């Protein structure tokens, strides 16, 4: 046990910093996925056939691709091999790597966000949109003022699930060498295999701490904000 505490204090394995990276990846990707997912959901309900098709194609294609593939494609393929940089060239390579990881996570989880929002849209009775159009609102206003505010309330629970999945899926970024929690775990185990269960426990507890509060908050609001009909 003493040896394990010593291990935790070893500056080489900074548990807090690793979980900090997990948190950064989660927050940035959640924002990215929400924006992109909203756009895709709107495409999927748009009155223009070709846009609907594009939205459907995006969801089918990306959702059925393993996340590891997307992350590796972005990190190794686009950044290392092709040299495509998302940040200014002066930014350190580690940051360039993180930027691509955020893009990969956003692109992947946007499909789940889009489906959550679309299922939320499907819970809004068609009469709501008809009434909005009948008072002269255009497509954007009908969506923004009437349909989406109600759709989001119906989508809160599945969106919460997606956020929790995203938090845990950030571990895939270890594949391109980003120093998040599971990357740290692998290093710790490699050099201290005798503490393998204690290390597992620390990382598992860390993820529970990260995912439990959002889970509770989302459940609370999905109940509280239910639209009364």
């Amino acid at each position, binding site marked *: 046990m003493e040896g394990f505490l010593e291990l935790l204090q070893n500056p080489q394995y900074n548990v807090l910093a690793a979980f900090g990276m997990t948190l950064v990846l989660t927050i940035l990707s959640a924002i990215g996925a929400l924006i992109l997912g909203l756009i895709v959901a709107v495409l999927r309900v748009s009155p223009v056939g070709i846009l609907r098709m594009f939205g459907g194609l995006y969801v089918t294609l990306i959702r059925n691709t393993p996340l590891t593939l997307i992350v590796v494609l972005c990190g190794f393929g686009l950044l290392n091999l092709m040299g495509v940089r998302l940040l200014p060239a002066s930014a350190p390579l580690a940051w360039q790597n993180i930027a691509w990881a955020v893009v990969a996570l956003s692109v992947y989880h946007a499909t789940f966000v889009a489906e959550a929002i679309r299922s939320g849209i499907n819970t809004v009775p068609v*009469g709501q949109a008809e009434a909005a159009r009948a*008072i*002269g609102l255009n497509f954007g206003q009908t969506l923004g003022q009437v349909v989406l505010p*109600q759709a989001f309330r119906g989508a809160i629970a599945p969106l919460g699930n997606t956020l929790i999945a995203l938090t845990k899926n950030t571990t895939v970024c270890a594949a391109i060498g980003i120093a998040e929690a599971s990357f740290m775990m692998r290093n710790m185990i490699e050099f201290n295999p005798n503490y393998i269960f204690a290390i597992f426990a620390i990382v598992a507890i860390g993820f529970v701490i990260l995912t439990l509060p959002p889970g509770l908050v989302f459940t609370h609001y999905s109940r509280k904000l239910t639209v*009364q009909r």
Partner: protein
Amino acid sequence: MTLGDQETATAPKAKDLVVLKDVNKHFGPLHVLQNINLSIGRGEVIVVVGPSGSGKSTLCRTINRLETIDSGEIRIDGKVLPSEGAALAKLRADVGMVFQSFNLFAHKSVRDNVTLGPRKVRKLSAAAAKEKAEKLLDRVGVGNQADKYPAQLSGGQQQRVAIARALAMDPKVMLFDEPTSALDPEMVNEVLDVMVDLARGGMTMVVVTHEMGFARKAADRVVFMADGQIVEENDPDSFFDAPQSARAKDFLSKILHH
């Protein structure tokens, strides 16, 4: 050949507000609107009656293009109904619609239901829209419910709010698609009273309803539809007391005698 073609009394006049000309619509193999010709003058109150499935709701919904038509032409205030886009939205703002199932915005308060259109479409200031909404809500008798949400109101109250929401756009014509069919019987009259007031106030109205009492009291003309056609149109007294067509006689005999 349909009766609509022969009917000289309904030949469109230049100043008519709503003119439907040779309108056809199919739902798959079902020909729901067959060569509909109908002209509605300014301030006129038209009540559309007929058995279920006769196409009367569809007719009502085509007038603000919630249903598209396959052929023919619909003009409102002289302008052909645009097929989509900003022009259609602009026209819909001038055509008020009241639905069978109220369709109040469930996530907005009663007041916000009424102010949404004026603010977003007519670009009224929040204060002006609020003042207007409160005036209209008072007029339909639900002024004290402005802060509640639709689900907290009775059906009759919700429908009166829906009428206020449509009126807030200062529409040229109001469409009512079976406005009392979803209401408990004791709430029907509170809604019909508001509609009678509107009719007396000179509003142009197209009302699809089963309320024959309302038709007698408020209609300038009764349009009887069956199987997608306008079978008969006449002033209410003539229609109810001396229907001409066999279909209308049959329909009235089934609903009036009990």
